């Protein structure tokens, strides 16, 4: 299905204060791919994500989702297609209860009540949060909030999942739980993250951004073995690929 393709061509974005955040970015992400977008702070990752669902408009260039260009007319369909999970779940959970929050998207799609209920149940089931349905968001823990935030997007049955720093601020157990959950998804997945160990586990392809440009784009393992490239982009090998800090034994080479 062509629905799941993300094409970015010659994308440039200049903010109102004339900061060039993105400069001549081009890449294509295919159906079912799991791609990480990594880079130092201020490399342009968040700005790029906001272009993928039309929240920001390109200054120059074009973004196409599923073969359609992003225009005012295609916007509602594209926003349904691209499910976006924000870095801070508190920004995403704004309704009084978890149930109502997960139902927010389907209700806006104008679905009948029975279908809304079914979708909410399914989405909460997928992230293992059905027991939280009647709770208000401020009574949830960080890990629970994150999973519920993912459910709010899943209930719109998106084809493409975009997540900004999914493992940020989670304890090791919640992080592991989330990685396992994301591994099982069949969607086209795009992540930004500083958690490079998560990137190795989840993404076969990695795009490295540096000062608003694509510095590298290729298989994750290849990129993480290129130490010179990583150093230039203010990055570091993931811990799981570095030697043991205590005995010095080298890790398994991927």
């Amino acid at each position, binding site marked *: 299905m062509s629905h799941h393709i993300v094409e970015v061509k010659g994308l440039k974005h200049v903010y109102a204060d004339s900061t060039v955040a993105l400069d001549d970015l081009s890449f294509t992400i295919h159906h079912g791919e799991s791609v990480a977008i990594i880079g130092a702070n201020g490399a342009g990752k968040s700005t790029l994500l*906001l272009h993928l*669902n039309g*929240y920001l408009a390109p200054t120059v260039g074009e973004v196409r989702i599923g073969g359609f260009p992003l225009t005012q007319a295609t916007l*509602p369909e594209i*926003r*349904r297609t*691209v499910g*976006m999970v*924000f870095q*801070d779940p*508190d*920004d*995403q959970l*704004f*309704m*009084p*209860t978890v149930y*109502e929050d997960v*139902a*927010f*998207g389907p*209700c*806006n*799609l104008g679905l009948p*009540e029975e279908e809304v209920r079914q979708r909410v149940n399914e989405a909460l089931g997928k992230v293992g949060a059905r027991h939280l349905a009647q709770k*208000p*968001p*401020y*009574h949830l823990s960080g890990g629970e909030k994150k999973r519920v935030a993912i459910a*709010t*997007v899943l209930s*719109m049955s998106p084809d493409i999942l975009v997540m900004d720093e999914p493992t940020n601020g989670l304890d090791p157990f919640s992080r592991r739980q989330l990685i396992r959950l994301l591994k099982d998804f069949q969607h086209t997945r795009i992540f930004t993250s500083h958690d490079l160990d998560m990137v190795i586990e989840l993404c076969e392809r990695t795009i490295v951004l540096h000062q608003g440009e694509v510095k590298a784009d290729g298989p994750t393992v290849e990129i993480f073995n290129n130490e010179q490239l990583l150093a230039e982009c203010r990055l570091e090998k993931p811990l799981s690929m570095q030697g043991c800090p205590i005995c010095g034994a080298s890790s398994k080479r991927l």
Partner: protein
Amino acid sequence: MRSIDGTVLDLKRLDLLATGDSIIHRLDARAKVVTTLFFIIMVVSYNRYALAELTPFLFFPVITLALSNLPISYILKKIATILPLALFVGLFNPLFDREIQVILGPVAISGGWISLVSIMGRSALTVGSAIILIATTGFISVCHALNRLGMPRVFTIQLLFLYRYIFVLTEEAARTTRARELRACGKKGLGFSSFGPLIGHLLIRTWARAERIHMAMVVRGFSGEFHSRQINRFGCNEYLYVIGWSLVFIILRTEDVTGILGAAFTGLFS
């Protein structure tokens, strides 16, 4: 002064009480809202020297409190926190209004003292009933009930957002003030001059958050219309509750129940 953290925890506790289960909890929120409003109007409608007439109105909060299994000491404490405010409102009444109204043996009581006590009594009754309403219904259900009773949708949404983000924002404010206090080392820090930038930062952060929330709403198809689930179950119990209490309030307001009871009581012994 209480810390911001403490206040938030307290709000959360009030919210958790509403998840309890009792006859009062199970009633439709609209019934409770209408009855409480009617109660407040009745209590406020008395003249300023009313004191004895107000006493039977204690029945309403006492009975609902007893039926709803709420922790009584917690509710009393909540009521006690607002009484100083009521005291300030009536503080000067005894000074200005020195006309003697009641003589109890050797003690003559002026109208000012009576109206001061009346103000405090009325505050305790009205605020108490409002706290019991929130503790048995929950703020969110009260908002939805007000909406279905005809409050404009815009206000409901504003209130719901306010309630959702009051926790996030107060936590943010608490973190910032804590950071300031720790670096002030128990002294005044830079005093009031450091509060300007602090509040400015909070405002900007709130602004940025509002934008992110709006973004989260827009990407999930928000187009200005809020859809919420409508649960209608205004049944027999609700009608009984509203009509029953309203009748009681009207009788208390129009008949001198205290006088009749008093006369019956003294008649018993004479």
